[in-house]
């Protein structure tokens, strides 16, 4: 049945798709126009709801005319990268260790529950106070908000490893390290990747909160400053920038996920299958030549 439906969609679908896209664009333009009109007629307070045209102008200004957003973007994304990398390495590593060790897991469990219930971003002021203003405390905050999702996901991935496969590995005489490398981690990869996706999103939120509090530089500070100066159009332009970044992160992680957990998707299976067949053939030829 499913095949039939796909077939139908493939044959008769093109004009339908075009029509739907047209409707999408139509709805979007209508909304924007109404908004613009509302601003123009003074129904919306420009101080609070800037007109779309004003936002576009701000885009031009902060990206090209003044070009001031680049520096802040560079600062913020650099922090996100550093904090995310450190936090996820720590999370995955600790998750694997704790997952493999029943005793540690048992004693850690209450702390994990407490940590899970605490809004982790709430520690931000504390970390800033303890580590001082500057990049270090910001990275620490990002690390902290990033750490949890990979940790929990790795942990549950490791715990929920397939029992039959585990027994198979044991019956083949695999060592603990071999079990981890050849069975547990590969099997947990999709779950870990899901954790990494969450972590990267949290990292973006984390850097914003850190910059809201420290108010020195970065995209969060920029949004705060623009809003304080009631330059709402520019604040919106910054937020739309973050939407774009968020979207790129989302798509990028999806791509990465498909690439790493290749056995979970058809294209990945074909790609890796072809590659391995080729490698195998090359090795065979090398052997017969020798």
């Amino acid at each position, binding site marked *: *049945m499913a095949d039939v439906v796909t077939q139908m969609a493939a044959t008769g679908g093109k004009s339908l798709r075009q029509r*739907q896209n047209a*409707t*999408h664009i139509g*709805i979007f333009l209508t909304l924007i126009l109404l908004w613009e009109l509302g601003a123009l007629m003074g129904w919306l307070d420009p101080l*609070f709801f800037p007109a779309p045209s004003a936002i576009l102008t701000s885009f031009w200004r902060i990206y090209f005319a003044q070009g001031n957003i680049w520096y802040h973007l560079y600062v913020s994304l650099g922090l996100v990268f550093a904090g995310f990398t450190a936090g996820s390495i720590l999370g995955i590593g600790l998750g694997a260790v704790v997952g493999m060790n029943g005793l540690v897991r048992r*004693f850690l*469990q*209450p702390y*994990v*529950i*407490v940590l*899970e*219930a*605490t*809004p982790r*971003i*709430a*520690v*931000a*002021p*504390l970390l*800033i*106070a*303890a*580590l001082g203003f500057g990049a270090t405390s910001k990275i620490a905050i990002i690390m902290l908000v990033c750490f949890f999702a990979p940790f*929990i996901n790795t*942990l*549950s991935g490791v*715990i929920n490893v397939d029992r039959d496969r585990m027994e198979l590995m044991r019956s083949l005489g695999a060592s603990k390290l071999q079990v981890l490398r050849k069975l547990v981690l590969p099997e947990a990869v999709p779950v870990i990747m899901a954790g990494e996706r969450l972590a990267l*999103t949290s990292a*973006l*939120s984390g850097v*914003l*909160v850190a910059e*809201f*509090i420290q108010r020195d530089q970065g995209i*969060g500070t920029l*949004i*705060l400053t*623009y*809003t*304080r100066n*009631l330059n*709402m159009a520019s*604040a*919106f332009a*910054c*937020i739309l920038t*973050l*939407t774009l970044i*968020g*979207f790129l*992160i*989302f798509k990028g992680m999806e791509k990465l996920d498909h690439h790493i957990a290749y056995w979970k998707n058809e294209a990945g299976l074909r790609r890796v299958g072809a590659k391995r067949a080729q490698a195998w053939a090359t090795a065979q030829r090398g052997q017969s030549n020798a």
Partner: protein
Amino acid sequence: MHEPRDFLFWPARVLPHLALLVALLGLWEWAVASGSVDTIMVPRPSAIMAAIFELYVTKGSIYQHFFITLAEAVFGFLIGAGVAIALAVSSSLSENFERYVSPYAVVLNVTPGIALTPIIIAWFGYGMGSKIALAAVICFFPIFVNTLTGLRQTDPDREELFRSFGASRRQVFTQLRVPAALPLMFAGLKIGLTTALIGAVVAEFAQATAGVGVLMSRFSFALDMASSLATLLSMTLIGLLLFYTMEFLDDRVVFWRRDARMSAVSRARARAWASGAEK
């Protein structure tokens, strides 16, 4: 992943945990006392205890802030969840609605909701309104997407079965789709509630006059780490309170996912049936 009741109500299992906690705190106290750790960065456990005692018992100044933040998170959650569920139900009932509305929901999802903090404060002011608004905005998406996914997952066999029984579209929705969606919806509500608390606290950091977030900032910037940590505890308590409330509701509503609850419901229904038969 964890069964919280196991360790809350089982003294035999709690004791080793307590022993470890006391040992760790002792080690910490000793490390700070011996001067190997900076007291400003890491306060002594005894100092934290004293701060907790002061904030929660002698002065009791935390409670006002505690309830403000709790109220902000809960109201924000209720608004966010209400809108999310309404939109998810509409989307699941109308293909067109879903097609033309869900792209905007996706845009909202990839935007870090936290980024809206300054703007929402500008819109809704320094009081509780802005905190509720931010909580509502950032808890919206997990609830929306989980509810929609739940409502959209269809089991062709069961749908056919309902059709062969002559069920109306409404019956298919209320008797089949909605109950089948409940487990996922509750998973979304749980995430959403935690997220709502984050929203309330972050908005308090940015600009507020009351709430545990404000208290936290004040103590931190006065470098009063012990009181900061004592305040953090109140956030954990709010978090736990919200989490277990949701867990309890989940347990009641989605009873067929848990063996113990299932047996209880099964007994209750048998009794109700028997008393119905008597009448």
